[in-house]
């Protein structure tokens, strides 16, 4: 399977993952969305040197991955393209903040090193929570939840259509790449001289296809608003989940849990 076909298959697998059944999948989409937003907001709000406090935040995604029956390694595998970027964000910190904060095994640990690690952790935890949300909630249900939060319909439609049409665009790219390689045997990738026309053709083909699709939608009564999944009313399980997670996340943020735990063993 080539890279493009692999990417298409991964997109489809995400749909299949979201359609699976587990206690987390059965939770109301709005509850999951609200908790995820809170989790990300709280995670990024931790002070830059608060490594210990941030570590506690790892519990939420890890526990929910277990409950949803989704291996954590799958998350890292799917996010492999984004993770290096997230990790690269704080890479300059050790040079910008060289003041030693502590010594570890005789070696000085600078503020820049700690802030780099916490920045990476914030990014990775946020990605894990987002992945968990989309891996346990079908895109239609997620869009319905966004509309319930009064996110503008145009933005939600854009999100939905982008998600749907990434697959179609990948297929167009795959067809064009295949046609190119059949006439350029032995060549790795697409030669730089062909990039312009390749991208131009892709744009034109995508526009044609988009026009056809939009026409098809118009002909079936589309007036700018999708009828998203019929999400049922929130049940007690959703309310309990939201309340427990909110309490736990806020506790993790404002109570020094690691210090409290440590004080049980060290006096």
């Amino acid at each position, binding site marked *: 399977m080539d890279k493009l076909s692999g990417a298409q298959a991964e997109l489809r697998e995400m749909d299949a993952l979201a359609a699976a059944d587990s206690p987390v999948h059965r939770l109301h989409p709005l509850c999951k969305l609200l908790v995820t937003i809170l989790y990300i907001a709280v995670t990024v709000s931790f002070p830059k040197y608060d490594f210990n406090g941030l570590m506690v935040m790892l519990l939420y995604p890890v526990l929910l991955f277990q409950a949803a029956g989704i291996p954590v390694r799958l998350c890292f595998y799917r996010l492999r393209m984004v993770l290096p970027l997230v990790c690269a964000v704080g890479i300059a910190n050790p040079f910008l903040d060289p003041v030693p904060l502590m010594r570890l095994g005789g070696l000085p640990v600078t503020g820049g090193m700690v802030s780099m690690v916490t920045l990476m952790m914030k990014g990775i935890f946020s990605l894990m929570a987002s992945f968990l949300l989309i891996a346990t909630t079908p895109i239609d249900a997620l869009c319905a939840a966004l509309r319930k939060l009064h996110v503008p319909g145009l933005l939600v439609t854009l999100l939905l259509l982008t998600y749907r049409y990434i697959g179609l665009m990948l297929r167009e790219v795959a067809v064009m790449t295949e046609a190119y390689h059949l006439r350029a045997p032995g060549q790795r990738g697409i030669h730089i001289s062909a990039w312009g026309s390749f991208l131009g053709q892709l744009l034109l083909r995508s526009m044609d296809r988009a026009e056809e699709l939009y026409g098809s939608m118009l002909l*079936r009564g589309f007036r700018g608003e999708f*009828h998203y999944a019929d999400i049922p009313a929130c049940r007690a399980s959703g309310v309990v989940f939201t309340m427990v997670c909110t309490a736990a996340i806020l506790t993790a943020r404002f109570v020094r849990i690691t210090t409290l735990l440590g004080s049980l063993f060290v006096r």
Partner: protein
Amino acid sequence: MIEFQNVSFGYDAAHSVVEGLCFSIGKGESVGLIGANGAGKSTIMKLMLGLLRGSGEIRVDGLLVCRENLPAIRKKIGFVLQDSDNQMFMPTVYEDMTFGPRNYGLSKAETDRRVDEVLNQLGLQELKFRYNHKISGGEKRMAAIATILAMEPEVILMDEPSTALDPVNRRTVIRTINSLPQTKLIASHDLDMILDTCQRVILLSHGTIAADGDTETILRDRALLEDNRMELPFCLQGWSPSTRSHLPG
């Protein structure tokens, strides 16, 4: 049911795709639209649906095709696109079938009733919850027809419905078309299919009507067809699989 009066359209002022078209189609008629590539078959359908705007007058069930009437007209017409991938944009067949009815304000219960009725009518119940990307080309074409029938249109337009189908799927599509009581306009190069499904044929040539009449009369007219870059349907060419071995090559 459908009336074209002096309809012209061109993508630029210098070149007309269709020129001074006048014809009408009665209720319940099944009409084939044939012609060489670029003759204007798809353009006629898009003009009828208001996706393209030309000059002249087009009426569907008495309604003039204009911006104000488009919602009402599009509710009456179902359009089966040539490429089913462009038509099936929801994840599953069920969701695709509910897209139109829900947009027209039908309740979930009524929509589900229509979906089941159409799937039963076409014998496609097993496709209901299948993912669109996992069904075959033939199944996708049938599902595309089902999405249109779920809207209960009065007129059905089909653009090359038999393209890229194997013989069995093609035959299924033909049987399905013949079982539909609606007014039908079918654009196709598959003249054998037109012969099997339409009582009347409109032959287009460079955007004008070269012939309009009984299907058999037109499709048996070798000279007329050849003048318009077409050939007799295979079934009228006087050969069959048993005589195939006598053909050169």
